[in-house]
């Protein structure tokens, strides 16, 4: 059936492609998606329109998946063994944050989404204190 929802569903993915590990990393990417999750949950809670609420869940799950993706990339590609020496709890921090992202994906708990934000902020501090803004952003990171 031809519905507005079907019309707006992307028919394909197009690639803003970069095939070199380019060394550009920033926890902000994960944070923006996590903020989306939190705001969407708030909108979900405030609405009694079932169609809107269904869309909220759909989009929130998608965004939570992106949080996991961005955290994984930081974890695998940015952080190096010397960072682990400085932060022995690095692996556990990421493990917990990505688990928290799964929790946000599965549920509609605004508290869980806020907790996820604070976990990403912890990772952000690790990224900053290991020279992330200067090393991985072009001309440093706009503050």
């Amino acid at each position, binding site marked *: 059936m031809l519905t507005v929802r079907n019309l707006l569903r992307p028919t394909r993915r*197009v690639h803003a492609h970069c095939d070199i590990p*380019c060394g550009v990393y920033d926890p902000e990417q994960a944070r923006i998606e996590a903020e989306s999750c939190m705001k969407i949950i708030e909108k979900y809670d405030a609405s009694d329109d079932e169609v809107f609420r269904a869309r909220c869940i759909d989009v929130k799950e998608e965004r939570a998946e992106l949080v996991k993706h961005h955290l994984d990339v930081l974890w695998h590609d940015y952080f190096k063994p010397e960072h682990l020496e400085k932060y022995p709890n690095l692996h556990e921090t990421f493990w917990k944050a990505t688990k928290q992202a799964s929790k946000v994906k599965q549920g509609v708990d605004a508290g869980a989404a806020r907790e996820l934000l604070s976990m990403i902020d912890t990772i952000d501090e690790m990224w900053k204190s290991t020279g992330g803004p200067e090393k991985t952003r072009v001309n440093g990171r706009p503050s």
Partner: protein
Amino acid sequence: MIQQGGRAWPLLFALGLVAGAAGSVALLRRLDVVEVAGSSMAPGLLPGDRLLVESISYARRRPAAGEVVLARDPRSPARELIKRVADVQGSRLQLRGDAPEASTDSRDFGAVAVDGVRWRAILRYWPPGRAGRLPGASG
């Protein structure tokens, strides 16, 4: 005469409906919606952004510098790229990502043939907070 005219109206109406439907289908086939993957167009376009693309303009004219277009990756034709036209050189286009330090584009695979570029990105409709015409989109 009056009777004949009266009988003609339903026919005209039906023809109008058919023409309208055919026109709508033709228009829909020249519009499409796509989702962005990858970050080489950041900060303008981010992964997950959903865009309206159209193939009307390039049926009539060539792409112009500054426009955001879809093109086959010459090295891997299954992959459809989204990049900005940096320069038009005859029948070849130089494509660039907006984040040049994090983009694979014409600097790596050379200029692409203008004939292969049919779709132009004109607006973002998702996420709603950043919905609107794309920066640099003309016409």
